[in-house]
């Protein structure tokens, strides 16, 4: 083995000096959530870094819906799932069709629509929330889960169209010409050539829209209020209504709520980072 040089040791030490704070900074809030979920209330509130008696009691209470704040836990989890999947599917449908029309069929006015969509994407969602809330009221959709679904599709679609158009522009145009020569209709081109080639981007965009909807708080809490209709994110926020909130249960629900998106994110990381982050700033 080679003897480490003094300079080598100093470099490693410097790297660790950055790495350890980064690790702690990243993990502490998440660890704190995990710690609460396995701690009895007294232990969590006593500021212990590890409970004397770790317990799964909190999960039992949550899964058994044995608390006032949790009486609709399973229903709210189902709502979150249903809304996220619907938003993912609808966004994919709307955005894929639009990107195909703009990029491959070169529909007239497609460029303008692309720019309008991009403009929408850059308007902060919190600013659109108030007019959206009033509009949903006018449409009679308040307290209806379709209001949230449609609002989230509106927010997710512009970026989706943009990413799909960028990916679609990269496909060689000769493919379309060959398909036309063979007498393919636009729909056949769409189904047999376009969709299979776009699969990686479609996966990325479907996941993006699904996670956006699952994670959404502001729109969900504005548009839904009935306990049986709200998503888990709103239910989490509602815990704060009382002064003596059961924080250990709140953190347990939070952990359950955070696990699926984190798992999806890590599973699709390659698509997410490649398809999304690169598209976000490079031009």
């Amino acid at each position, binding site marked *: 083995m080679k003897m480490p040089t003094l300079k080598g040791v100093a470099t490693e030490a410097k790297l660790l000096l950055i790495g350890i704070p*980064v690790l702690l900074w990243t993990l502490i809030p998440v660890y704190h959530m995990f710690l609460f979920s396995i701690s009895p209330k007294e232990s969590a*509130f006593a500021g212990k870094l590890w409970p004397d008696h770790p317990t799964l009691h909190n999960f039992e209470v949550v899964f058994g819906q044995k608390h006032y704040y949790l009486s609709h836990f399973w229903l709210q989890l189902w709502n979150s799932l249903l809304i996220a999947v619907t938003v993912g599917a609808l966004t994919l449908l709307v955005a894929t069709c639009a990107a195909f029309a703009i990029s491959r069929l070169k529909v007239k006015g497609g460029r303008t629509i692309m720019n309008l969509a991009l403009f929408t994407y850059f308007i902060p969602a919190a600013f659109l929330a108030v*007019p959206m809330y009033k509009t949903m009221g006018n449409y009679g959709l308040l307290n209806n889960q379709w209001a949230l679904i449609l609002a989230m599709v509106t927010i997710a679609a512009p970026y989706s169209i943009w990413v799909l158009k960028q990916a679609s522009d990269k496909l060689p145009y000769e493919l379309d010409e060959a398909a036309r020569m063979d007498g393919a209709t636009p729909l056949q081109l769409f189904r047999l050539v376009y969709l299979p080639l776009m699969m990686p981007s479609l996966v990325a965009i479907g996941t993006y829209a699904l996670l956006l909807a699952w994670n959404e*708080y502001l729109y969900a809490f504005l548009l839904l209020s009935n306990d049986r209709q709200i998503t888990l994110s709103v239910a989490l926020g509602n815990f704060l209504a009382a002064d003596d909130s059961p924080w250990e249960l709140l953190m347990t629900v*939070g952990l359950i709520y955070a696990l699926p998106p984190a798992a999806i994110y890590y599973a699709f990381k390659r698509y997410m980072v490649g398809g999304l982050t690169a598209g976000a700033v490079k031009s």
Partner: protein
Amino acid sequence: MSTLAIPRVEPALPAGPAKRRLSPWQTWGLILIAPYVLVFLVFVVYPVGYGLWLARHPASYVRLVDDPIFARSVVNTLVFLIVGINLKMLVALLLSGFFVTARTWIKWLSLVFILPWAVPSIPTILSIRFMLNPEWGIINHLIFRFTGADGPNWLNEPSVALAMAILVHIWKSLPFWTLILIAGRLAIPAEMYEAASVDGASGWQKFKFITWPSMQTLYLTSTILSMIWTLGDFNSVYLLTGGGPADLTHVLATLGIRYLRLDQVDLSMASIVCALPLVLPLVYFMMKRLSK
């Protein structure tokens, strides 16, 4: 750019009879784009128009400007953007240099590092909120254990509470921007650094003459985009401080919702209209960059 791959022929020209006004390709194009156009009209154009109509009375603006909370929110928003975002981007720039170092443990660390971005913001912000609880929070427990003194009342002092909201925002979005800047760094050819090493360049010189010139456009675009998104960051402030104490930590994103909850929709819309001079130049810049 990617458009290079596309030959400059007029693709929509029909192969069939030239007299028909719409080829089947154009017809299908219109049919396929219609769903998004419909969504855009019903859920973007109408709400924005209706919102502007609600904010049409000059009296709303007079009342808004008279509200001291509005002025405070504008200041808070500017602090959030100018201090918060620049701090975040600077740290992201430095960390991107750390993460491109070739070490196995740094590879693993980078996987852990994106956790804040991968998990939803609500539970983690609430987790941080309890950590900062003056009586039961873990931070003040630790301060007491090590110093014997009571820790500060983190969320009850407006400027400290705002600083905490900024830190929460940074905690959440730092991984994303670091990833972007890592991608930027990895795009720089390694030969440039090797050549510089041969010529005896120091680390700082390599950064100044190679890294920064290749990354500055990306860095600027990222900063602008981050500012736009941060203007709409409702969760970091609302879930941590709720705008309190005494409505002194509101930003424009939470202020609109506050007025809405107080049933003052015209003020709510007016505050958003007032934010437009801040938003539109940034959006214009991004549109110029991206809509090529």
